[in-house]
């Protein structure tokens, strides 16, 4: 069954959608959208470094994404506005990554594959890493679920309940780095944030509790992966962007339906 590249691509897309759903909800609730972007853009630097040192892409990207996320968290306390800081770091990381890649003479790499993903080239090993990462992220977030939710709502409330919001933030940062590392093959550096945010945003109108929203976001993400890939196959369009396009269409449709039913009520 795994011999078929479409089957592997579909499984990869669904795996990433599952990891992205709970994390994406926190990214939306905590207004960390740009933070996700910055971490993802840094990943291209990770790709360049991995190729330069001839190691596998995943650990390289994971390490750089984590370093990026941690330095943003540390620097945020030093007086710069968060959006300025992220704007500086995200785009410099991307630029340095692109420049670093150009130095890698002798290696012919397809940069587009990393910017927009190359889901149709997912191997069995990739699939194993993607699902391993997804299980790890889902495990981490469900383990700390209540604590994460409390810290997201109010820092003092978390402290008074004996939690440490900084530690919970670290868990999210780590999950984000893992998700970026496994998603790079599926949607690429430029569209990872879309896969985090769009399903969560689309799920908002239908959900009454945080848990609902996570499950609905996962369903939307997985559906987008299935339909987007099918569309890419039929219309011969790039796979990663097609997945994001379908998610965006769901978002628009849910918003229109939501608005209409609100007007009627």
């Amino acid at each position, binding site marked *: 069954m795994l011999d078929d590249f479409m089957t592997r691509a579909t499984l990869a897309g669904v795996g990433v959608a599952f990891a992205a759903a709970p994390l994406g909800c926190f990214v939306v609730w905590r207004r960390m959208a740009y933070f996700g972007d910055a971490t993802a853009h840094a990943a291209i630097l990770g790709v360049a470094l991995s190729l330069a040192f001839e190691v596998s892409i995943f650990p390289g990207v994971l390490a750089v994404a984590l370093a990026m996320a941690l330095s943003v968290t540390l620097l945020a306390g030093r007086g710069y506005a968060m959006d300025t800081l992220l704007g500086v770091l995200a785009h410099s990381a991307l630029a340095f990554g692109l420049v670093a890649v150009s130095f890698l003479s002798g290696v012919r790499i397809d940069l587009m594959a990393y910017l927009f993903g190359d889901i149709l080239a997912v191997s069995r090993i990739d699939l194993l890493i993607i699902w391993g990462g997804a299980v790890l992220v889902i495990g981490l977030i469900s383990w700390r679920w209540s604590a994460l939710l409390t810290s997201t*709502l109010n820092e003092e409330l978390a402290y008074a309940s004996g939690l440490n919001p900084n530690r919970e933030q670290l868990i999210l940062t780590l999950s984000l780095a893992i998700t970026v590392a496994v998603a790079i093959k599926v949607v690429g550096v430029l569209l990872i944030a879309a896969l985090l945010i769009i399903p969560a945003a689309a799920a908002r109108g239908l959900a009454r*509790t945080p848990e609902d929203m996570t499950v609905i976001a996962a369903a939307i993400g997985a559906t987008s992966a299935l339909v987007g890939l099918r569309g890419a196959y039929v219309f011969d369009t790039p796979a990663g962007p097609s997945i994001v396009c379908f998610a965006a269409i769901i978002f628009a449709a849910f918003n229109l339906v939501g608005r209409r039913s609100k007007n009627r009520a």
Partner: protein
Amino acid sequence: MSLIAVQNLAVTYGGRRVLNDVSLTLDPGEIVTIVGPNGSGKTSLFRAIIGATDAAKGNISLQPGLKIGYVPQRLHIDPTLPITVERFMRLTERVSRARCAEALVSAGVPDLLKRQMAQLSGGQFQRVLLARALINRPDVLLLDEATQGLDQPGSAAFYQQIETVCRKTGCAVLMISHELHVVMSASDRVICLNGHICCEGTPAVVASAPEYRALFGIGTGGALALYRHHHDHDHDHSHSHEAAE
């Protein structure tokens, strides 16, 4: 033994000392109010007690196993986060739906379980925060200006509710408030804070202390009058205006 004992506490923020040599204790069943002007370090004191801010000097000891119910000054729920009152109540405690309902009744807002937090009025929201803080039967209730955004009758009714609940359950209360005239009648002790402790004692003693008058000016004469007014004759305290919420 005291529930909370703060000894010679100093707290520094960005090189600026916001609290200096603060000592206080809270005993079981006591209701203690902290008053002080803006920037007097009231919230820093609370953050130090719950462990959100490190002490630069001195120490804070909590009774081992102390259960704290915390009502924050303001709780902003991002509009992208859907959450019902029931889910919010069970955020950190595994409690039954019956306990949630019971806690809401004792906070004066029954029948809100299924509502979205974002749809509540200011008064309902603060009472749900109070209900959540009371749900694990805490030994201490910490309230940080819990009536911001409520009108005067609303906050008077809110403090009345706290006094009723806490006198019944024996839960101690440490609260910060701007509204001296409203909270004083319910307090056993008042601590007047302005970076350090200016004066403390029973409400009547503090209200007539020169240090207190220096901080709060002549308006406090009215506060004292109101305080006495509350105590020398008994009104019907049913607060029927709450129904308007």
